[in-house]
């Protein structure tokens, strides 16, 4: 009599066991699938060799030029390409203009960044402006990893066939409705660069990100 109960109970336990194993496997697969989509591509950060101007030897290559009127030759022409090795970005540069309200229009392509052509030319004294999309409607875009840049990372602009190197100083995030225009586009004593993309929460009702990420960099 009790043997029947025993076998019945064991069958129940085994079914529970199989169900638990299958559920565990399903959860692992589901979590992995979602997480892999969220996490930026592996290998996006690169060795310290590409960093420019570490704490030990900051920006004093220019010290020799501080009193001498030494001319740092900057290649002429328009900038053509942008390269940021530490986040594996290399792109041609489109020309960007202001719209009728004076706002900078974003690039038409998700794969290319653009530079504000009525502003400072990268390499000339002042803050040059480069913008790129963080994502498209269905995936990452050219500046997806921009927010992972750190101080010391090198940002290079090709102009007149030569590469000009800038060094990241800070990475900041501002709500778009409190964007500090005067700070981001302020006049500067030397050649500087501003890289701009979107970040923060995405407002589905406005189809727009709430914040802008601004990377500040100076020429070295």
């Amino acid at each position: 009599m009790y043997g029947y109960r025993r076998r019945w109970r064991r069958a129940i336990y085994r079914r529970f066991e199989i169900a638990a194993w299958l559920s565990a496997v399903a959860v692992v697969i589901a979590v992995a699938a979602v997480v892999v989509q969220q996490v930026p591509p592996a290998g996006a950060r690169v060795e310290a060799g590409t960093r420019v101007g570490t704490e030990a030897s900051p920006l004093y290559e220019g010290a020799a030029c501080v009193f001498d009127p030494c001319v740092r030759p900057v290649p002429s022409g328009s900038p053509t390409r942008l390269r940021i090795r530490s986040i594996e970005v290399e792109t041609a540069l489109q020309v960007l203009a202001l719209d009728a309200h004076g706002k900078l229009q974003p690039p038409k392509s998700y794969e290319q960044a653009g530079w504000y052509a009525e502003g400072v030319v990268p390499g000339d004294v002042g803050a040059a402006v480069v913008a790129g999309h963080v994502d498209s409607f269905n995936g990452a875009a050219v500046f997806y990893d921009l927010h992972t840049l750190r101080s010391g990372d090198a940002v290079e602009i090709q102009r007149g066939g030569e590469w000009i190197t800038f060094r990241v100083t800070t990475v900041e995030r501002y709500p778009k409705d409190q964007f500090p225009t005067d700070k981001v586009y302020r006049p500067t004593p030397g050649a500087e660069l501003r890289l701009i993309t979107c970040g923060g929460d995405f407002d589905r009702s406005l189809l727009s990100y709430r914040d802008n990420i601004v990377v500040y960099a100076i020429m070295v």
Partner: protein
Amino acid sequence: MTYPNPHRMSGPIRRTVALPLAVLAALGVSFAAATPAAAEDAPVGYVRLAHLSPDTPKVDVYVSKLGDSSFKEQIFRHVGYGVMSNYLAVPVGTYGIAMRLEGQAPSVPPTLSTQATVEAGGAYTVAGVGKHAVIGLKVFVDDLTRPPADKSKVRVIQASVGAPILDVGLANGEPIATAVTFSSTTDYQVVEPGLWTLQLKPNGSSDVTTLSANLDGGSVYSLLVLDGPNGLRLQLRADARGGETAPDGGVATGAGGTFSTVNPLAMVGVGLVVVMGLLAIALRMRRMASRRS
């Protein structure tokens, strides 16, 4: 005959599941709450040096960063009257600036010394000012904020003892600064961009010194007034430049394709908890199934 109710979880199962779930829930929560460390910023400011004392011989200038031995002390030698350097980009912090007469050893106490605190995006002119008998080191804060509506900004740095008080204006009569005294600087004056003739007239004299210069919109200038061999010597320096027309606000650079409200760390944490719980159940079930009773 009564059958055990399959819908009621028995005691051993409950005990087996509850404890590991509780432990792993705690782990999962702490894992999910972990945030990546903030990136270390390295903001910079700009500093330049000037020798504005007409009767002081050449000096050597020493610049060091207080409390930061990784900053190599910068030494600028043979700086004479009227020399104002270009801006040097330096990490934010407090700097010690010392001036010694040209050629003096660093062990000699400096003729002049001062400190300057450099803030992010700030610009400073550190100048030896005044006649030699009363020379001092002043730190001028250079206000490089953007001129309104893409105009230009100009100010005067008066280092002429031959014309100790003077008026500065544009050729069309528009004043830039009046009664500017020796070893002082003025506030920045907003002017229309364009090609201008700047006029300087010392008080009590009818001599006018002029300088033609192009003032660009969005840029900031200092007019350096010095004693020269034939009267006043003028230098217009572009302190900072910007584009003539700056964009208004940020840029719409994202379509939301990668945005998700799910925090991947939280997902992994919760998933870990669930998987561990399920494994605990599975192993317990196996034990129960192979029990002899």
